């Protein structure tokens, strides 16, 4: 996993609420056995019509907006557990998703792939969406160490929460597998103790 410490980038606004992972990557694109190329089909049915022509009104087809930060509406990533949604977003080039709420499984999937989900207050979200719309070239600054998100040259800053362990993983580019395997002895002891208590072995 790539390390994540600080990021400064323009952002893409997508102020739609309850964006489910079926929209991020439709089920028909999940038939492969690798993690590559999902970005081509990110938001497929919002991005292309049934003749595979770009839908000009969709923000990813609007060249005014670009950058590695996606600013989305409330409750982002609900629905299916498919990690392909996180792969599609990272493959497309996003490194940060900002929303006022994230679904649990998506949030975990994002963090496991070096994609930082930043939950901000609804007011802050509205504020930055307006700023981006007014000026698509405006840059957002993410400081993971300080846990802040701010807008360049403007007094607009908010702190965000992140689990201390996950923060450490993001900053150092670690993942959970290494940690879990290093715990193997404890896991085996746990299994052995449970086997003694016959009644509670599942």
């Amino acid at each position, binding site marked *: 996993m790539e390390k994540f410490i600080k990021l400064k980038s323009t952002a893409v606004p997508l102020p739609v609420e309850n964006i489910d992972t079926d929209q991020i990557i*439709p089920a028909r694109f999940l038939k492969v056995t690798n993690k590559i190329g999902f970005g081509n089909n990110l938001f497929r049915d919002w991005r292309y019509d049934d003749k595979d022509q770009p839908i000009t009104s969709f923000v990813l087809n609007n060249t005014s907006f670009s950058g590695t930060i996606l600013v989305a509406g409330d409750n982002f990533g609900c629905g299916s*557990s498919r990690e392909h949604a996180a792969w599609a977003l990272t493959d497309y080039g996003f490194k940060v998703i900002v929303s006022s709420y994230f679904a649990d499984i998506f949030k975990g999937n994002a963090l496991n792939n070096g994609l930082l989900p930043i939950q901000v207050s609804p007011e802050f979200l509205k504020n930055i969406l307006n700023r981006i719309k007014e000026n698509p070239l405006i840059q957002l600054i993410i400081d993971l160490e300080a846990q802040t998100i701010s807008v360049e040259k403007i007094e607009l800053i908010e702190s965000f929460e992140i689990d201390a362990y996950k923060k450490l993983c993001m900053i150092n580019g670690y993942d959970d597998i290494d940690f879990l395997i290093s715990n193997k002895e404890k896991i085996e002891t746990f299994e052995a103790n449970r086997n003694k208590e016959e009644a509670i072995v599942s």
Partner: protein
Amino acid sequence: MEKKTLFDKVWDSHVVSEVPNGPQVLYIDKHLIHEVTSPQAFAELEERNIPVFRPNQIVATADHNVPTINQHLPIEDELSKNQLEQLTKNCAKNNIELYDLGHEYQGIVHVIAPELGITLPGMTMVCGDSHTSTHGAFGTIAFGIGTSQVAQVFASQCLLLNKPKSLRVNVEGKLGKGVTPKDVILYIISKIGTNSGTGYFCEYAGNVFQEMSMEGRMTVCNMSIEMGARGGMIAPDEVTFDYVKGKKFAPKGAVLEEKIAYWKTLPTDEGAVFDKEYHFKAEDIAPMITYGTNPGMGIKISENIPNLEDVSFQKALDYMGFKKGQSLIDKPINYVFIGSCTNSRIEDFRVVADYIQGKQKAKNVIALIVPGSQQVAKQIKEEGLTTIFETAGFEIRQPGCSACLAMNDDKIPAGEYCVSTSNRNFEGRQGQGSKTLLSSPLVAAAIAVEGKIIDITKHLN
């Protein structure tokens, strides 16, 4: 003594260790896998040269993109075929039990594990599928995980997790005519919304759930994820024990008795405190249908679509082709899908068969019956339901996820409405441009007969 919830008891007994100021290492008893969310996890392990730690605690099945006709023939879709072959190879290489196409136990992952006695009370279970919450019906902590986590469980039989907060949904009273478990959960989600459960694990309590069959409880727990909760649970009781008894892989004899004695200690202690609680009256619930593009956008069939000023709400109505304040009664429907991990168990099909016996589906309707597993398919045959379905003009298919998420050929054409017993009405969920209305199997059956949306309560004796 500290008062504990059902969730606390099961969770706490599975904690291996704790990261200081961080997550806990949670031991997983059973790991269910299927063809779509496992290949990248197997690849990850292979790249890092890590063996599968506890292959005996993993069960695999083929469900998401299997065809539902001619399952004995080679799969035509190259990509689907490749994914299924990959699963077969990965399972063989790692000594994992696989219920592949053609196996008598094959079926939707959340249907087969309970019916085989793989799901037991007090366990922790995971699967790379958000509807793993289904197994919570047994008083099991069961939840969906991403592919990175599938790899973690392969490698260590554990996951690093922060303990979720606790939520209890109480429903007390007597359910009305034609109100089924699916209506209960659609009603709850319509009232509390699709993100009210985020960060929580939910327990369903009250006499309504106690009086429900195991299959009804599975339908309810299945949709916990649709309110944002990682999972839902119902305390194990005699109904649970009776269901488990005699199942293929369930414990038997003295071992079972010993386990039952333990399972009886699991229900939430009186006086235990939940972080959040909701109360509903059974009498307020009626047969439900959804009108929008998330499962929270549901109404009683007899009600009108609400009048809300909201951009996302309007976007959903535009997609569905509905208007604010509109009634759905008499809306023509050409497709009905009865299946999915929410409603493809034998009881669901009994309800449908009971309603349509002696009736005919409307001419305009294509009505699909897709059993959740080979065993359910067998039951349908043995109980004589096949004749009822066929006489009424319903099409019986072979087991799989089918038109719930349309990864196989069972797609609803663009622009068409489908009344579906599945769990999601997202844009394009059942095929690009398709429009899904979620309902119970009873409501779906009635709509198939009429060819349009009706108020089921007026059609029941």
